């Protein structure tokens, strides 16, 4: 095992997303992992384009945005150090529904989607473990999104934006 992979191995082990996975699994996943760095303004992924990676943000802030020509980029969430980003790798067509843009220098560990899928196909048990964890992230995002949709702080005198 290369030094690089070994270091990533350790990183993954420390992150809550991978808690409970056996060392062998981590070693396997580390083989799909690499360190990445994004400068301010760079995209981690783009809407409707290939988004075939899982990111663990180690440093910096990433803005999740949808661009509107009329309104500019609408930021609906920001993720930062410690957050997990990118669950599209598990659902075909492995394409993202939004842009993810670095707001400052961002260092992340990314895990390659096709690599992880191969390993999950080979070992469905590992696939199940990753699926559980990805779904948890998705559920959290969805609940937060519900909230924002409610526009709770809207002044009742205003007409509602939705329904």
């Amino acid at each position, binding site marked *: 095992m290369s030094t690089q992979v070994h270091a990533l191995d350790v990183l993954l082990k420390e992150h809550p997303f991978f808690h409970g996975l056996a060392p062998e699994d981590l070693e396997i996943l580390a083989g799909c992992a690499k360190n990445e760095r994004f400068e301010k303004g760079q995209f981690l992924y783009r809407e409707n384009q290939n988004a075939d990676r899982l990111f663990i943000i180690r440093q910096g802030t990433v*803005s999740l945005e949808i661009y509107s020509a009329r309104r*500019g*980029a*609408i*930021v*609906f*969430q*920001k993720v930062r150090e*410690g957050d997990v980003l990118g669950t599209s790798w598990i659902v075909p067509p492995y394409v993202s529904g939004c842009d993810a843009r670095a*707001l400052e220098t961002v260092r992340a560990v990314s895990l390659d989607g096709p690599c992880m899928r191969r390993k999950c196909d080979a070992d469905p048990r590992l696939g199940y473990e990753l699926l559980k964890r990805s779904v948890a992230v998705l559920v959290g995002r969805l609940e*937060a999104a519900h*909230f*924002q949709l*409610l*526009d*709770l*702080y*809207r*002044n*009742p*005198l205003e007409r509602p934006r939705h329904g």
Partner: protein
Amino acid sequence: MAEPAIAARGTVPPVSPMAIRPFVVCGVRRETRDTFTLELESAEGGPAPRFLPGQFNMLYAFGVGEIPISISGDPTRRGPLTHTVRTVGVVTRAMERLEPGGVLGVRGPYGEGWPVEDAAGADVVVVAGGIGLAPLRPVVLSVLAERERYGRVALLYGARSPKDILFRAELRRWRSAFHMDVEVTVDRGDRTWRGDVGVVTRLVPRAPFDPARTVAMICGPEIMMRFAAQELVRRGVARDAIWVSTERNMKCGVGLCGHCQHGPLFVCKDGPVFRYDRVETLLSKREI
């Protein structure tokens, strides 16, 4: 429960709790597009009445109507009576038009307040949503006035958008004084907003406090309070260490008109601040 204190036969009738006192507007400040702060002084002279953080007054606009508004001022100083008001209806619109010299009727202060004293020795987490920051401001000011009595202090505040953030300058001062954590997030950002975007509940998992010795106080829309309380519980804060401030229709403010009932609780006199374990089940029920 008090013994019936009904006036004995033939004695002078008691003073009505519905009698208002005139207060003069001595300061008006626009906070956001639909929110403003009024500073009031008694028209009859004398200092403004003492109040506890979390209490409210019934404010009366002559000939228009009367509504409950939380006191948003500093309880540690005998300054003017301060109310931060959001324009949501006829009476608040009338109040919005007040200028210095204008007069409001005041009754109060009423209600049970936040457990600021009982939080001494613990970490304090204040979670505010929207206008909910106004009734919590007296908590922060009380805690900061005796900072050494408390552990870590964190304010988590969610607003609709950057333009809707209340008390901006004060928030900046609190944050930059290093002795409390201030996290502000908005539901939707704008082009210039550099801060957090997302619901305020997302700030709870990461906030710096020790769940085992924390007193949490939450105020905002009811949905937000429910979810924030659940996040705090998930993080290990005991249900009897979490407090919320609820709101219902009030006509009298003193437990006589029946309007503010939330289940068996009178929000005006049993609350508006409640310990979470007392209202958790009620909050989960519909149309109650």
